């Protein structure tokens, strides 16, 4: 039995400890905000915070998550009012929206460490997150907006 700490709460999981954290969050805990995009660390759709760092839940074995504080998009801000979320809404960033939870989690972890990013900083931090709809220009603008106060 694994004990996980997700969004400030304790959860337990009694299945295969070797499968990716992603599927435990989504299928076992019902935290479906974290998305599946590639299963190989290539797209960022599954990004969560592990002790404050952005991590890909699809390449992290669930047993490795034990003992760490996991935060998913559902737990980023109880009211959905994190500056990154607000900036995303103000600039109407999403199209289909599917990639956006991962984008927001990546951006939030990045801004926590780099409060005043340059364009190159943003590109460096966000280039692991794919948006097939092509919302990149607005993602970049929203990160700037979040960093300067929404």
């Amino acid at each position, binding site marked *: 039995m694994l004990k996980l700490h997700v969004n400030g709460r304790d959860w337990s999981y009694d299945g295969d400890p070797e499968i990716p954290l992603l599927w435990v969050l989504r299928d076992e805990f019902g935290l479906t905000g974290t*998305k*599946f995009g590639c299963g190989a660390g290539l797209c960022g759709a599954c990004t969560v915070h592990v002790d404050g760092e952005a991590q890909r839940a699809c390449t992290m074995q669930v047993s490795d998550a034990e003992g760490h504080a996991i935060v998913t998009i559902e737990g980023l801000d109880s009211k959905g009012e994190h500056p990154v979320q607000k900036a995303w*809404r103000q600039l109407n960033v999403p199209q289909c929206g599917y990639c956006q939870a991962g984008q927001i989690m990546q951006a939030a972890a990045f801004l926590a460490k780099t409060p005043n990013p340059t364009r190159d900083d943003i590109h460096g931090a966000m280039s692991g997150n794919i948006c097939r709809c092509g919302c990149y220009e607005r993602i970049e603008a929203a990160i700037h907006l979040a960093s300067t106060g929404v």
Partner: protein
Amino acid sequence: MGFVDNKHLSSAVMQPDQVSPDQGRRSFLQGVLAAGGCILAVDLLPARAGAAPAAVIKTGADAMSVFKTGADAMPHGTVNNPHVFITIDPSGKVTIIAARVEMGTGAARTSLPLIIADEMEADWNHVVIRQGHGDETYFGNQDTDGSRSVRHFFMPMRQTGAAMRAMLVAAAARRWNVPASEVRAENHQVLHAASGRKLSYGDLAGDVAKMPVPAAETLTLKQPEEFRYIGKGRIGMVDLFDITTGRAPYGIDTRLPGMKYAVIARPPVVGGKLVSFDATEALKVPGVEKVLEVQGWPWPSKFQPVGGVAVIARNTGAAIKGREALKITWDDGPNATYDSEAYRKEITATAQKPGLVVRNDGDADAAFAKAARVITADYYLPHLAHVSMEPPCATAVVADGKCEVWAPVQSPGNTFEELVKTLGLPPEAVKVNVTLLGGGFGRKSKCDFVLEAALIARDVKAPVKLVWTRDDDIRHDFYHTVSAEHLEAAIDAGGKVVGWRHRSVAPPIGSTFAAGVTHEIPIELGMGFVDLPYDIANIRCENGEAQAHTRIGWFRSVSNIPHGFAVQSFSAELAHALGRDPKDFLLDLIGPARIVDPRATAEKFWNYGEPFETYPIDTGRLRHVVELVAEKAGWGRKLPQGHGLGIAVHRSFVSYIATVVEVAVDARGNLSVPRVDTAIDCGAFVNPERIRSQIEGAAVMGLSLAKYGALTFKNGRAEQANFDDFPVIRIDEAPQVTHTHIVDSGYNVPPSGVGEPGVPPFAPALCNAIFAATGKRLRQMPIGDQLAI
């Protein structure tokens, strides 16, 4: 779980800590108001004076009163009954049903409901959106494809809203016992000016709930200056709050009590089949509960499953692990030798020979025989995979002689019909619930993945969620066609183009539906090929045969991609050969403002399913977007070393779009795109802010396909499997800025497509810019390392 009673709403599914849609939206609206109300300023431009479009459209008081669209020819047409789309609650809450499918354009769940809200004078703050389930006999056509949503439903949605407004007015007039003419509806209230009396929409909810609907001819539609929401672009997407908090329910997020999770191992070659399998090791994987065969249909399998072996488990991770442990023997079938490199040579050779003549103006042979000069070029564009970020997936329950599914499908009506057929159930026993789509791009018009889920659920006797992994998606797609395009121009002594020959060779979409279809079907021919809008006396379009060896499907903008790339690259090549400015030469090729009617010379001319009278090919509008984008992009401006500008124009989905790309190519041949300008004339529009987002997205997708897009085959097998070998553009390579210039034609011009038309002009504009920057002409896509030094 029970089958949900409400026949017409998509059934809710379990969502952890789900906020209701109205709570979510209210929060968003508060956010917008706090932010000053206006989300984005959009560059709107007047239509060119004198470019009189679509003469059939009435103007003035009758503006937009009636124009015929292709909607009537679509299965189940359109519906304009307010009782189908609108419910008013005594609290004043107005529920509007979104019957079409939302995949990111904003059309289905924001723009169409906004039209209803505007015409009925509802306050958007008190509107909630519910998703209708798949039932075209009730809602009208739901096939969300072909950039048709606003084009076909603008008028029916206006009539729906106007009818409800008339009913509210009639109800209040009856209560007050005054003539309806003294009563008006405004912002969620009905007012009687003479007496100062008011009733809220909520007060009248019971009165209108069962009221007969007035005939469409008796309705007074709003004048455009009365629009509250249409054309303004001030309303955010309905699902924005839920998207940013992870609560928006996509197909992959469906959860049902007792649900199992499944993945399928499919034949690696399309047309192949299962010989045998050994599940011993797979069943030892913790969490794996069952392994079973999934029925496959013979090639060509239309939208039916290709078959394979399903692994059912307690979660998707266990199912994937179980699948890796399967031992399977396949028979590769008739496509086992498909090799895309050999095929490239084959179709390129075919394009050198005369093909079936599909358009013939004047006498091209004579023009070429007499030409002072003949210029020729060949272009090649490979297969593409759609790779929507949400892969195909579906959840199904089949029990007690009933089937209910939850799925991200672009075509709920077709999905419904296919489920009825495949499961052999009566129609009333099947329900298709539509979720949000995490991207579609044409892939999710094909319901194979839903049928798979239903077949598995039937055998497992429990709710089942089927997920396609990314490699499933890339290896088993309905691919965008591969194409060889051969162009010839006959030039006279004065440097004028007097003859044009275009041969297109591409395995057609028709091959997915019937064996032996080797010629492009009318919808493909009509996409930038036989509808060539150029002012050239002698034009011949020919289509060579191409046998498909994989499943061909439509991909955002479809055959406009290869046709547009070839025609617009070749136009710039001709300009260069003749020493002309590419933009001026393009305008000369288009010629004066007029209506081009290919019906006389292209037997099977298809106009995106639209009546030609409503949506003619208007070169005035085509010229205008070229002139507009050139002006806005600063065509001819001085550029830094290594930069170049390229231009392309294309009419598709009956919209007119021109793009100027600025490219920068560094000393090592790395390209970047500092700026894109796109001018779009899509007639009357509803949501300029979402038009802008579609054009921005189209530039990114255009750059993806130009730079990287190649799906190749060896031994019948797709050679790519994930984003490492099938890359798409990421943020650090995306166009730095895309300026969208929307032609504001007012509401006398019928609306036309937006979702797809931004894609076709991008790649040729980019390659024309690369030529301007480097002198290198790229005729084979993708660009890959062709610029590397």
